[in-house]
């Protein structure tokens, strides 16, 4: 949409990069622990399974919908509670969730559909690609390299793609 990529509106993730340093912040070990829980749950609930993704997109089982719906509901309740309590982070700053820019939504529609096709082909989202690799399905290393190539390609084409 624009010839100059620097004219693109700032996305939340960029805003994050531009934020002032947060001091030392919490130890990375905590993020590792939460990531381990994530990987374990992904594998043990079989949401990383190509078969389960097929079941979902054929509307033949409630399993995937149940996982997604309860995850969203619990997260929404927790967010509302944190807001109500005016909770602070461990570092003492107020908790903030930056809203995303919608505009005409080109990036969400086109990017979303392309990711949806890839989700069904690989049977995995980005998180599950790594959980499957850790779980011993080594060929997913090739899928991860392809995903990195895809992200890189987006970066290269970004200024020529419609976004908002």
């Amino acid at each position: 949409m624009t010839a100059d990529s620097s004219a693109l509106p700032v996305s939340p993730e960029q805003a994050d990069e531009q934020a002032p340093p947060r001091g030392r912040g919490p130890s990375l070990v905590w993020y590792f622990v939460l990531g381990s829980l994530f990987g374990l749950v992904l594998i043990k609930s079989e949401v990383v399974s190509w078969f389960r993704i097929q079941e979902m997109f054929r509307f033949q089982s409630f399993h995937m919908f149940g996982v997604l719906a309860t995850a969203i509901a619990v997260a929404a309740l927790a967010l509302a509670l944190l807001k109500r309590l005016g909770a602070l982070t461990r570092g003492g700053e107020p908790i903030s969730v930056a809203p995303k820019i919608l505009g005409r939504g080109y990036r969400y529609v086109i990017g979303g559909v392309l990711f949806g096709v890839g989700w069904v082909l690989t049977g995995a989202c980005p998180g599950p690609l790594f959980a499957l690799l850790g779980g011993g399905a080594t060929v997913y290393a090739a899928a991860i390299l392809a995903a990195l190539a895809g992200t890189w390609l987006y970066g290269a084409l970004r200024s020529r793609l419609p976004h908002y």
Partner: protein
Amino acid sequence: MLEILARPWPWYVAGPLIGLLVPALLLLGNRQFGFSSNLRHLCAAVAPRGIDFLRYDWKRAGSWNLAFLAGTLCGGFVGGRLLGSPGPVALAPQTQAALAHLGLHDLSGLVPREIFSWASLLTLRGALSILGGGLLVGFGTAYAGGCTSGHAISGLASFDRASLVAVLGFFAGGLLCTHFILPLLF
């Protein structure tokens, strides 16, 4: 205890645990749950090559993400190797029939061995599924600015309209691929 953990976990256990990651990451360091940023950080670390999208301080923005990713690999190892499920995925019979119709008969693992093996990378079906699919996952999530964790879970939980549009896109793409692309490819 280990025997119970090794069985597949039901949706009402898995979903809430995943949902709790959202407040946990916020409380820990004001971080928004989202996995696909890792792909961007890894690209930025390896080959930024004059691409604006990849030229930023990935260590400052992404250390926490990459620590989370290392955990995901590790959790996958524990779940897949140490606590591996004793049987195949308990798929709906209609799905089994639909997959047989597509020519898939080995339903014994978490993923179909007939497609996801190193040998099948040399077949059109395998290469398109693994490499083509991977490429679309990377391109699509970068373009949309998030994946299932960032848009479907974090985004919908904070009632973000942009995330809702993205999630509708995910499902449109998934339905399209399941019902129109897979029958051509298989």
